[in-house]
């Protein structure tokens, strides 16, 4: 449905000065996230209140206009790309932290609050909000909810969904609904707030969230570990987790990833190692000591050749900053970058890595293997050039096979990025027809005319 001039005028009238955009130069700035595909919206609005969002939705519903929600646009699966055009509702200006209550362990935020800003606001209370996506410094809580974002320390702490106590949302017809509460225990009715996590704006627009916050651990320790053999490296991960130790984060990087990071950040990682682990434990000094000892034992048993502990908090921060920049440093290597996050049970991590390597070799593509290995969340990174059609066909085939391999090992399509435009076609690999139908029925119930982020996975 194309927006008529009349609808555009009505929409503009709902918005304040500078909060309605429809000139091509402005629209072009809301056509993308960090994924490859782009699509132009017909209008962009930057609301300031729930009431305004409700009016926008009522207008869109009356005229059957597609509506796509957007935070900071840092997702890497194309979720906020408005493939059916229509209106982009960008929440970046609804950026107020409304309440912090560490006694009752919650904070109330608007969707445009940047994850890092919430962390900064919690720091004086010695509390934190665990989900830590790579884009933590700019991604919004609303976007994190839409994508059910994760991050390295979600190994121990869980993903966004585990920290959403309640939401306020505007539905497709403009109704304002509230699910959940400020109580950390709440089994009143369906856990509707959880349903919105990972919904990518297909069920409603989240306009406020009550998030659970937790006390900061006393201390943390970070190890970098090298292996001469990638298999050993992966087996060590599987064995550590299998033995009941739960580090805060356990990141695996192959030689190619380590070298790409080193080219950029010069951290002194070993360029010769076939596999490298970045492990963080946190808790009390005593528990850290105990976990580190247990981890060391396992590492040695799996032929780790070098183990080094970050000496200062600054060194720890440098390692994690470098880890967060991997997507960006890979972008340097080629015009396009494909990063997927197929996830398998942790015991299958070694086998999954072997399969990814074999598939890449078969299709003659370059792949960097990185993983939030502790929770089986693989991040194969492929730098390539979309304009090189022959190469691109090989890349696509390789990814088809990587997802098939993940599914065959009891894995799933996405651990934390979401489905968006990137993975819709793979859904049948992990969900049968009946299950997908139920998902469609839920969508149908909340958004009968299908105006919320159409063209995505449901």
């Amino acid at each position, binding site marked *: 449905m194309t927006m008529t001039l009349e609808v555009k005028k009505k929409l503009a009238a709902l918005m304040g000065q500078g909060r309605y955009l429809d000139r091509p*130069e402005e629209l*072009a700035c809301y056509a993308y996230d960090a994924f490859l595909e782009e699509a132009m919206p017909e209008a962009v609005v*930057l609301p300031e209140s729930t009431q305004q969002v409700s009016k926008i939705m009522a207008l869109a519903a009356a005229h059957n206009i597609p509506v796509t929600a957007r935070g900071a646009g840092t997702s890497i699966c194309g979720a906020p790309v408005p493939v059916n055009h229509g209106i982009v509702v960008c929440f*970046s200006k609804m950026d107020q932290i409304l309440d912090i209550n560490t006694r009752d362990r919650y904070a109330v935020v608007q969707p445009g609050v940047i994850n890092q800003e919430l962390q900064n606001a919690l720091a004086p209370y010695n509390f934190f909000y665990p989900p830590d996506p790579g884009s933590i410094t*700019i991604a919004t809580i609303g976007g994190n909810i839409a994508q059910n974002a994760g991050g390295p320390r979600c190994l121990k702490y869980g993903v966004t969904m585990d920290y959403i106590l309640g939401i306020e949302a505007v539905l497709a017809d403009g109704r304002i609904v509230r699910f959940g509460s400020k109580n950390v225990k709440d089994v009143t009715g369906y856990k509707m707030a959880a349903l919105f996590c990972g919904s990518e704006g297909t069920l409603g627009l989240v306009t406020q969230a009550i998030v659970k916050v937790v006390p900061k651990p006393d201390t943390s320790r970070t190890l970098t570990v090298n292996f001469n053999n990638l298999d050993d490296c992966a087996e060590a991960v599987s064995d550590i987790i299998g033995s009941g130790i739960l580090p805060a984060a356990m990141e695996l990087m192959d030689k190619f990833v380590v070298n790409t990071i080193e080219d950029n950040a010069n951290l002194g990682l070993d360029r010769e190692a076939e596999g490298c682990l970045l492990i963080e434990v946190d808790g009390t000094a005593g528990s850290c000591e105990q976990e580190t000892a247990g981890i060391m034992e396992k590492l040695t048993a799996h032929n780790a050749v070098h183990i080094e502990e970050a000496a200062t908090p600054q060194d720890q921060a440098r390692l994690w900053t470098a880890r967060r920049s991997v997507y*960006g440093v890979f*972008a340097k290597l080629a015009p396009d970058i494909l990063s997927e996050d197929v996830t398998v049970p942790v015991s299958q991590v070694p086998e999954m890595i072997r399969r990814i390597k074999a598939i890449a070799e078969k299709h003659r593509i370059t792949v960097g293997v990185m993983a939030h290995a502790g929770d089986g969340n693989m991040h194969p990174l492929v730098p390539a050039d979309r304009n090189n059609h022959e190469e691109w066909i090989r890349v696509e085939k390789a990814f088809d096979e990587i997802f098939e391999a993940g599914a065959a090992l009891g894995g799933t399509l996405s651990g934390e990025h979401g489905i968006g435009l990137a993975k819709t076609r793979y859904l049948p690999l992990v969900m049968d027809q009946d299950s997908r139908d139920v998902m469609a029925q839920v969508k149908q119930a909340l958004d009968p005319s299908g105006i919320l982020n159409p063209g995505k996975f449901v």
Partner: protein
Amino acid sequence: MKKTTCTPLVTAEAQAAPQPPRALANCGKCGLCLSACPVYKLLREEQASPRARLQLIKAFDNGNLASSVLLKELISKCLMCGSCAKTCPSGINHYDNFMQMRRKMVADHGEEPAIKALIHLLSKEFMLKTGSRIAVVGQRITPDALAQKYSLGNIPLSRLPRLNPKPFRDTRPQTVPASSRMPAKARVAYFTGCATNFMFEDTGNAFVEVLTSLGYEVIIPGSQVCCAIPMLFHGAAKQAVFNIKTNIQALSQLSCDHIIVDCSTCGAALKDEYPRFLARAAHDRELAKEFSSGQLADLTDRAGTVAAKTKEILSFLAAPESGLTDALPQKAAIPPVRTVYHAPCHSRNSFDSHDKARLLLRRLPNIDYIPLPSEADCCGGGGTFFYEHPDLARQMMDKKQAQVRDAMAALWLTDCPVCRINISGSLAPADAIDVCHPVTMAARALKADESAKP
């Protein structure tokens, strides 16, 4: 809409030469640059972000977007602080891309008269000198009532800095010998920049005092002119050529060990922008015309020498081998003054000087340095940004000022003249906060018997 193209054609020679990297192609759109952008952080609108500007440039280059006044506006709503490029994990040089795009946009849509006049003035040293003489007289006779009423951006005329009675470089010999009390050290060339020359002679005097008293011989080349950054930022590449040539000639023929700036933006020009500009000129028919045959290669060579010697004063003094630490008295004669610092964008991004500046400030016995969380946040000055976008500049400044007042500081140091104009201009007289270059306090500390107040 009229589609205007102004992409310069590539000459045959340039095609044979190695191509500059396809800078834009490798932007992964990750968005990390947004977290570094002072304008985005304030406005929270994608169209005011570095990533969006790159996307717009890409769309323009691909022919998907026509040149327009709005496009020029979106490209120019930027401080040119370089924080985005500094943060970019993909190594995109946002800065360079923005500069070239600004040039195209100015060619198509012109520039604001006030900025055009400024650029014209800065590209003609003799006019600048004459202009400043007239302005000095003007400032003396402007009635206070008028000075209060009119303003530049948010800054009332009355709070703009007084011009130097005489340009700084005219007050000094071209070679200032090292103090005889110290063992002779190296020879340094002082690139003063226009701000010190015409406005902030206190900085210039302190600079020369500190270095000569530490045993350095200071050469102040008489033929130096404006560094050309204002022209480059406002798309006046052709006007920049004369200044770039002149400065490279003036500095490369000197026999000196270091070329030191008190303004890191000038420093960024000498260190980074001149070599880049010359490399680009080889691929640009219009710019290549400005150079005689063989001149470009010769200048490129010389620019490399200049770039390698260029340093900014705070990092230079913070290094133990400068000799400052040993020369400073242990204790100030009078109680140290409560002092805060503003880290300018080009000091942080082009010279990575923030930590070194802090080190230096902690060593000065005459100040009680209080680091602030907002120390490295933009003040909104940004060359001409404070004049073009006073509302945004004001909001950026307000956040910083609140922290400075809470710190009960009496002195606010910064090593960028535009930040200094912007900061001192937006303080109220009741604040009673002095603003000057850190080198001024270093000079005072070396004269232990003098008052510690600027």
